[in-house]
């Protein structure tokens, strides 16, 4: 009898979750339509799509290799041959910006994704159980958050050494506490709702309650937070490259290119303008999308980290 009740309860729960998912899917579909209904987010989305395409097909559209040096063309201003000009080593800046998109977007994207996944799991567990576990985790995250992101990143890189993998670890460590706090705040407001209590009464396992009942409620907030974290991560990757502790030369990392362009600014100012412009444009694009997502997903603004 008890087994039957449990089985019945399970079906009910699945149906509820399914409804929640269907609702969510339609909300996301609406969101995509909404994105292109508003001029600001339409621009943002287009910018983002263009940069993602650039990252995907960069090697096919870049006329030169990222470290290909044309001695005779060194330090040339923008022209038909070199749209963005060449740097002090005769490298085509357009090719480097295009090929660098993959590095920046992949590092920022994968790092953010890792932070979102990790932060979500920690936030769910911490918020759901509460008590001493929640206290310990949150105070630990508070201590991490008390350090400015760049300083924390520099400290981590100091011990890890500069490399792509280190940058990924840094983004994950820096942004996991923020994501976890956002998820936790949603969990705290949701875990006392009837459908969660119903699942608990039905004896559902914890992972089921966490991921099938509570998790869908965090998705709108996660979508917005994830996109914001993504744009911050682009900044962070570029900043680390600029400080010379991130991706190593001669990678076409935009931050690194800005650093190199700065040293040669009096001779080749275009070597600074274009990568710096690329960083600015992609960050603006992502933020326009994030801002609109927040509005149309109706993420409650009273949710605090």
């Amino acid at each position, binding site marked *: 009898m008890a087994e039957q009740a449990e089985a019945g309860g399970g079906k009910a729960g699945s149906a509820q979750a399914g409804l929640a998912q269907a609702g969510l899917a339609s909300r996301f579909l609406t969101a995509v339509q909404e994105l292109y209904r508003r001029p600001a987010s339409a621009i943002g989305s287009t910018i983002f799509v263009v940069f993602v395409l650039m990252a995907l097909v960069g090697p096919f559209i870049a006329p030169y290799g990222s470290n290909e040096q044309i001695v005779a063309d060194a330090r040339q201003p923008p022209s038909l041959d070199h749209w963005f000009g060449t740097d002090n080593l005769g490298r085509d800046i357009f090719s480097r910006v295009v090929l660098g998109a993959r590095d920046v977007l992949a590092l920022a994207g994968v790092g953010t994704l890792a932070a979102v996944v990790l932060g979500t799991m920690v936030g769910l567990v911490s918020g759901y159980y509460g008590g001493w576990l929640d206290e310990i985790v949150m105070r630990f995250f508070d201590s991490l958050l008390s350090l400015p992101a760049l300083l924390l990143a520099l400290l981590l890189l100091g011990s890890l050494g500069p490399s792509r993998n280190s940058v990924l670890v840094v983004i994950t460590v820096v942004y996991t506490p923020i994501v976890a706090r956002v998820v936790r705040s949603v969990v705290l407001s949701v875990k006392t709702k009837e459908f969660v209590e119903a699942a608990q009464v039905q004896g559902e396992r914890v992972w089921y309650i966490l991921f099938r009942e509570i998790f869908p409620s965090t998705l709108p907030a996660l979508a917005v937070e994830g996109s914001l974290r993504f744009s911050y991560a682009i900044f962070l990757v570029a900043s680390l490259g600029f400080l010379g502790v991130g991706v190593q030369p001669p990678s076409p990392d935009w931050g690194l290119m800005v650093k190199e362009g700065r040293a040669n600014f009096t001779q080749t100012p275009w070597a600074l303008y274009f990568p710096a412009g690329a960083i600015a444009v992609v960050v603006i694009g992502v933020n326009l999308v*994030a801002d609109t997502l927040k509005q149309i997903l109706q993420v409650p603004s009273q949710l605090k980290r």
Partner: protein
Amino acid sequence: MATRGNGRWIIAAAVVVLAGLVLVSCGPGTMTPGQEATEVPAEDGGTAAPGEMPAADRQGTLRVSAFPIAQTDPAQISSDAEVLIANHIYDYLVDVDADNEVVPRLATEWTRGEEGLTYEFTLAEGVVFHDGTPFTADDVVYTFRRLRDTEGLPTADLYSNITSIEAAGELAVTFTLSDTNPFFLYDLSDNHALIVKDGSEDGGAGGAGSAGANDFNGTGPFVVQDYEPGNRMVLEANEDYFVEGQPHLAGLEIIFFNDQSASADALRGGQIDLTMDLSTPLYESLRQRDGLIAQDIATNQFANVRLRVDQPPGDDPMVVEALKLATNREEIFQLVQQGYGAVGRDSPIGPLFSEYYTEETGIPQRDPERAAELLAEAGYPDGLDLELVLLDTLNFPDLAAVLKQQWSEAGIHVEVNTVPESVFYGEGQWLDVPLGIVGWGHRPYPQFYLDVMLACDAKWNATRFCDEELDELIATAGTTLDEQERIDAYHEIQRILIERGPIMVPYFFAEYGVISDRFEGFQIKAFSGRTDFRQIRLAE
């Protein structure tokens, strides 16, 4: 939770990033290399006539940019700016000119004993310190004993070969050495060897960084009138200066700048008259400008690409040869140095060392196919993967980028790893990593590099290269008093290093200076801190 305000903030931040970065780009450029100096061989002799120029003939104040200084005691100075300032307040016993020849300064002439172990110097007459006390042999004795005997001073090691320093009269000094040192005169003109008054505790400079005007008690061509640390130093011509007709200027003003771009802008705007703190791009931007005279000089500061030969893959000479064949030095020179300085020939003996330098042995032409074949013969048919470790300063990252490209055509794939100075030198990476790029400062004679870097028992033999024939030649060059024998030894050393040496020297750096055309007589030296302002005058 990210609020709407947050989103807007980051958008605003993104909008200003361009402007911000552009503004930042107007800030500091790359730092000019920090070098150490000392100087090359020359013959004995020379005089300097004491005298005085009528005050009315001294005209104009030269305003010079310099990085802020930390040390004012001549025994402790090291940066270009510190040496530049001290060099005009104090005098050297002997100096080195722009052609790298030893010339008289406070010593008017000198003789070397037959065994090459004693040197007698005759000192200039009528020299007085800025406080009015006469200069005597005791001041020279005190200065060099202090430099040799004070623990922790950078000169203690340099002068450890001097067994005695004695006054041989009021204006005569005798130095006795334990071993012959053909470069002894160059050692005496080391950056720190500025003559200070007998008994002055801190070299007469007052406390480091806080010296008052009366503390700078030298015999030099300019007298300190006012010093505001971090801001400026005002100097007036020494009316009692012992060299007739010098200095030509009535005054000198050192204005401290924390970055090169700012001093370049100040020169453009007419706020200063001379800057020698320039990166290549900044120099290029000033070079063609009306009203300015630009000068560049090849130094012996160089980038050294070195491979350890005591472990794979460097322990196979074919790998070393392959790396050399895969490298195009001329292309590196044009791209990285923009043609300033000099192309290197895989040896630390650069063209600045005139007779010691030779091009008798040709550098093999670049041949990536042959390099790939050699690698295959050495057991690397699929190419070679290497990590290249280097400093993240100067143009070393550019050099690494070009090497990566050139070597990739020979199947040598390089992972570049740039590290800060504190790690590179502080943790000994520059000596330990298998493949690295190390910068070597300018020295006035080549023996130093050979002794500390390439001899079998050299203290900084980072490659662990040991070649018997090379070792004998280094010993000969460093001890013989026969100049021709030394020249021959240096030529042989260059041949060996090109043929089988473990280092590649793709280029020698340049030093730059740009001065307003209101002045003439400026001649930059390979170590810019030793540039002599005594000859500079207002243009007619």
